[in-house]
C-alpha cells in the first residue's frame, strides 16, 4: 500500500506531530522546502520506494498517525545520506527514527528482527548470540578455537536498568 492510499482518509493530528517535533530536538523539520535532495539520493528509493521528502511533508502537515503503521518507515537503510545532504537540516532519518519509536509506543507492527534483538540484549547483553563459523574448507570454528576471549553474560543489575530505559516514553 502506498503512502498516498494511506492518506486518502487521514486527518491531521497536531498532538502526534508535536511529539515527533519534540523528539527531534534542534532538527529543523519545519524548514523543509521540499527540494527533494533527500529522496534523489535515498538508498532505499530504488528498491523499496522510500521517499523521505514525502514523509517529512506529511509530518509537517500533521498526518502522523498513519505513518507508524506503514511498512515504509522500516525500509530506511540508515545510510545517513539524507542527513548529510539536507540544506535545511530537516534530517528525514531522524524523523523516520522518531516514527519508528512512535510505532513501538502505539503497539503497531514492528519487524520481528528488532524485537528479537531487544530480547537477546536483555538475556545475553549482545544483540546476537556468538556463532560457529564453517570455513571454506569445512572446518567449524568458534571463539574458543580461535583463542578469542570468552564473552561473559551481563550482571543482573544491567538487566534491571535496561528494562527501565526501555520503559521511557516519547514526551
Amino acid at each position, binding site marked *: 500500500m502506498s503512502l498516498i492510499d494511506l492518506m486518502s482518509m487521514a486527518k491531521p493530528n497536531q498532538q502526534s506531530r508535536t511529539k515527533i517535533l519534540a*523528539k527531534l*530536538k*534542534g532538527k529543523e523539520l519545519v524548514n523543509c522546502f521540499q527540494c527533494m535532495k533527500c529522496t534523489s539520493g535515498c*538508498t*532505499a528509493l530504488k*528498491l*523499496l520506494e522510500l521517499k523521505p521528502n514525502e514523509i517529512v511533508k506529511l509530518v509537517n502537515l500533521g498526518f502522523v498517525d498513519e505513518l507508524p503503521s506503514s511498512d515504509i518507515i*522500516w*525500509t*530506511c*537503510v*540508515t*545510510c*545517513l*545520506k539524507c*542527513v*548529510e545532504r539536507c540544506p535545511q*537540516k530537516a*534530517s528525514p532519518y531522524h524523523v523516520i527514527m*522518531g516514527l*519508528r*519509536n512512535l510505532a*513501538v509506543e502505539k503497539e503497531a507492527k*514492528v*519487524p520481528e*528482527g*528488532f*524485537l528479537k*534483538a*531487544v530480547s537477546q*540484549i536483555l538475556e545475553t*547483553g*549482545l*544483540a*546476537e*548470540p*556468538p*556463532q560457529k*563459523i564453517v*570455513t*571454506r*574448507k569445512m*572446518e567449524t*570454528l568458534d*571463539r574458543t578455537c*580461535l583463542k*578469542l*576471549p570468552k564473552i*561473559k553474560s*551481563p*550482571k543482573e*543489575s*544491567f538487566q*534491571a*536498568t*535496561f528494562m*527501565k*530505559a*526501555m520503559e*521511557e516514553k516519547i514526551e
Partner: protein
Amino acid sequence: MKIAVFWGCCIQANQYAYEMSVRETLPEFNIELVDLQDTTCCGDPVKSMNEFAATYLAARVLALANQTGLDNILVPCNRCHFTISEAKDTIKRDPKTAKKVFELLKEEELEFNPNIKIWHTIDLLHDLVGLDKIKKAVKKPLKGLRTASHVGCQIVRYTDLGRIDNAENPKKLDELIAALGAESIDYPEKLDCCGAALNRSHPDSALSLAGSKLKAVQSLNIGCMLVSCPDCQLMFDSKQKEAGTTVGAKLNVPVVYYTQLLGLALGIDDRKLGLQLNQSPVEELVTKIQG
C-alpha cells in the same frame, strides 16, 4: 600507547576475523588494546524501538571505558561508532536526557565521561599511527595489487556529528591502502551502501543492495575489495553467494578487512589474521602476497 576497545555484537558474534586482525596488527605499532569488562550492545538495534534506551546503552559503553582510566576508545564497527558518537552528542546537547541517563548509569555505579575520544580503525591508523610509520613497517609491499575500497556509511556521515573522513569524498582508507604499496581505484558505486541495516526488516532487499554493489565491483578487474566494518563484511563476504542470487550473478569477489591486508603486508601469518574465516575466495590473494 594503551587504548580501550569496544568490539560490539557483530564482531563478537560472527565477524571474528576483524577482531583477530585488529588484535594482531595494532600491537605492531605499539598500541596496546584494553578490553572493556561487562560490555553489552552499543544500542544500535534498540534505536528504532526506543531512542532513549539506545542512548543509555551507548553512554554505558563510554562509562565502562571511563572505568579503565584511559582517555581513548577504539570502536572498530561503523555502526557502533555512529551510535556511540550520536549518544555522546545527545548528552552534550540535551541536559534532560543526560540527567536520566546518568541516573541509570549510577545504578550500576558507572560514571559517564564526555572527554573520552572515540576512534575507528581507519582514523586510528591514519591519524594516530600515521602513514609513514605504516609504510616503514611494511615487509611485503603489495605492488601491483588493484583494490576497490568500501568505507561504509555511518563512519563518514553525518558531518555535523564529527565523523572520521569527508562524507562525499572519503580518502583516508585509500591512503592507507596506498601506504601498503597497493592501488585503490575509484569507481562510481564507491559510496553505495551494503544494505546491512535492512537485515532486520527486509533481508531480501538487503541482499540485493549488497549484490548490486558486488556485481559492479566484480567487473572492475581487481585483486580484492576492502572494508573496515563488520556489517559491510557480513554482507559482502559472508553473504556473497546469497547476494549473487538476488542480482543473477555468480560472484567471486575476494573481500577482506583492511586490517587483514595490513597484517599480510606486515608479514603476519594468514591464520592469525582470520583469513580462513572469509567466505569469499581469498586464497589467490593470500598466496600472491605471501609469495
